[in-house]
């Protein structure tokens, strides 16, 4: 089911009506509607056969924190009954060990299912034991990476005593299965999302117009930008030959950077909007990433919830672990800066190795993750050198020109990363990177594209995409300057607004049609 479809609109309409109708009688029971809607959505969109995996994940992450809480209580009792300080300490240590064992077992269960379904087949294939990456016929459940990570964050937070664990399994299941997040995230935190799902909402508090505006903005990004480009990108990178001109590669990668952002952030806009219609605000996942001034900054603006998840559950715990602290102490003998940053850099590499694996077990994803990790680590290790260089060259790091320079530089660095993300064969990624510099060959650009099957009309129709990109750019620039763009638009007089909506709708309608038909050259077929 597409998010922009009659079936989703009807689904939303029925769910919203039920939600607010129930709310009239009992706000305390409203969450039941959300759970019913979420499970129904999961069966409608995914395969109902894979629902069991989600239920299993929810059950584990529901039961473990309750067990931990009970262990805490027992520990307290034992300590209260202990005869002396040493006995109290011993009791605490014993229970801490047991608590950790429960945590590890629960983590293994959650990640075990994920790893088996997502990676086992690919791994077998890579070592030559499976005929194809999908030969086992395992059904990858919809949203498994997202709900697993979200549930695990709940588990670890509960382990750390951040909140009282949820006793009601169905309420916990709602947190795990909340339908807007299940397609492509964001990865929410229980402390933020849980209470919102469970407390009642009334229709009059919902920012309907803002939600609709955001839904439309997301649809524009997804249909007028991402879907318009995906075919051409595929044609370019599905037959990489040794003589592929660098100009074609660069074109394809630039299209990919727009497509990737349009698809992911557009989809997120749409689900955030859907969620907010129920009065539930999910975590933000994008903050205009292409305006980042460094790669580290980029990762704080792109897929934000994955970044913060990694920061809180991998980066910090690993970086402050005993071996890393020892490494820092040893490195500080070589220099204070090195001592402070080396543990962070190593932790960072680990994070991006996992981010690469999150996308898939194929070698090119791992390479992509490590590339990001290495660039960020080096930037940090060499920060004093850069600072000295800037001072020596009298660069005014506060100037607007310098900021623009940083934004452009980061954009280029990110795009080099996309080579490894998008080109599905690691060798081809390197080949394309080499040809970008050694065989740019702009004169072969159009011939190569036409041989790859890219119709001239596809290029012409990118004019619509360019208009959509321009709109997104203007909106993003204004948001960067702190302008509440939605508020501005809603403040326009209604005639101007109507005309503006017509333009956006027109763009979506035309591009949505083109993406399904232009590939066959039937844009202007007279039916």
């Amino acid at each position: 089911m597409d998010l922009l479809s009659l079936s989703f609109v009807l689904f939303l309409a029925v769910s919203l009506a039920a939600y607010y109708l129930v709310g009239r009688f009992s706000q305390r029971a409203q969450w039941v509607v959300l759970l019913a809607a979420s499970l129904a959505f999961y069966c409608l969109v995914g395969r109902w056969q894979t629902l069991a995996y989600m239920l299993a994940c929810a059950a584990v992450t529901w039961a473990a924190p309750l067990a931990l809480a009970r262990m805490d209580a027992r520990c307290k009792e034992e300590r209260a009954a202990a005869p002396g300080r040493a006995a109290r300490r011993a009791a605490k240590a014993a229970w801490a060990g047991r608590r950790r064992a429960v945590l590890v077992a629960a983590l293994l269960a959650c990640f075990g299912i994920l790893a088996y379904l997502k990676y086992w087949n690919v791994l077998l294939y890579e070592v030559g034991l499976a005929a194809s990456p999908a030969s086992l016929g395992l059904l990858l459940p919809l949203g498994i990476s997202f709900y697993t990570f979200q549930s695990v964050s709940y588990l670890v937070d509960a382990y750390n005593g951040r909140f009282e664990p949820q006793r009601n399994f169905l309420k916990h299941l709602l947190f795990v299965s909340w339908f807007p997040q299940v397609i492509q995230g964001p990865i929410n935190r229980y402390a933020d999302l849980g209470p919102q799902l469970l407390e009642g909402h009334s229709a009059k508090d919902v920012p309907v117009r803002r939600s609709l505006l955001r839904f439309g903005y997301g649809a524009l990004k997804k249909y007028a930008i991402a879907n318009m480009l995906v075919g051409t990108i595929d044609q370019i990178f599905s037959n990489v030959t040794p003589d592929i001109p660098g100009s074609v590669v660069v074109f394809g990668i630039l299209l990919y950077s727009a497509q990737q952002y349009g698809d992911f952030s557009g989809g997120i806009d749409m689900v955030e909007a859907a969620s907010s219609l129920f009065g539930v605000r999910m975590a933000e996942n994008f903050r205009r990433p292409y305006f980042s001034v460094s790669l580290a900054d980029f990762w704080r603006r792109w897929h934000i919830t994955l970044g913060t998840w990694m920061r809180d559950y991998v980066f910090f715990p690993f970086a402050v672990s005993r071996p890393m602290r020892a490494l820092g102490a040893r490195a500080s003998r070589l220099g204070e800066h090195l001592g402070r940053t080396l543990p962070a850099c190593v932790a960072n590499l680990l994070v991006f190795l996992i981010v690469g694996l999150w996308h898939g077990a194929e070698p090119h994803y791992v390479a992509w993750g490590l590339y990001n990790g290495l660039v960020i680590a080096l930037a940090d290790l060499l920060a004093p050198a850069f600072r000295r260089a800037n001072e020596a060259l009298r660069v005014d790091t506060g100037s607007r020109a310098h900021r623009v320079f940083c934004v452009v530089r980061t954009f280029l660095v990110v795009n080099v990363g996309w080579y490894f993300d998008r080109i599905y064969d690691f060798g081809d990624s390197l080949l394309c990177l080499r040809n970008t510099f050694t065989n740019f060959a702009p004169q072969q650009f159009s011939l190569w594209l036409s041989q790859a099957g890219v119709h001239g009309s596809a290029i012409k129709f990118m004019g619509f995409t360019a208009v959509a990109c321009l709109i997104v750019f203007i909106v993003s620039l204004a948001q960067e300057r702190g302008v509440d763009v939605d508020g501005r638009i809603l403040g326009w007089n209604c005639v101007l607004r109507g005309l503006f909506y017509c333009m956006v709708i027109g763009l979506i309608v035309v591009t949505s049609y083109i993406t399904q038909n232009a590939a066959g050259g039937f844009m202007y077929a007279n039916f």
Partner: protein
Amino acid sequence: MDDDLTLDHMIELLEDVKGNVDYENCTTLVDDRVLDSFDILSIISSINDEFDVSVPAKDIVPDNFNSAQAMLDMVKRLVDEEG
């Protein structure tokens, strides 16, 4: 040892890690992304050196690092717990 645990000392430590920040008044150091995660690790490492106390992963939450005062409170609590 406790004599060292003053706000001034904490601010001095923070300025060593990252200058040009109004540590005396800012209470949204993490929320407003003044400090990034690398900075926070540097701060933790400095706290370890200066106050001889290690900050466990579970205490690395925005609330504990949003202001100099919050960091100071956290350090005091950790010192108490260790003692």
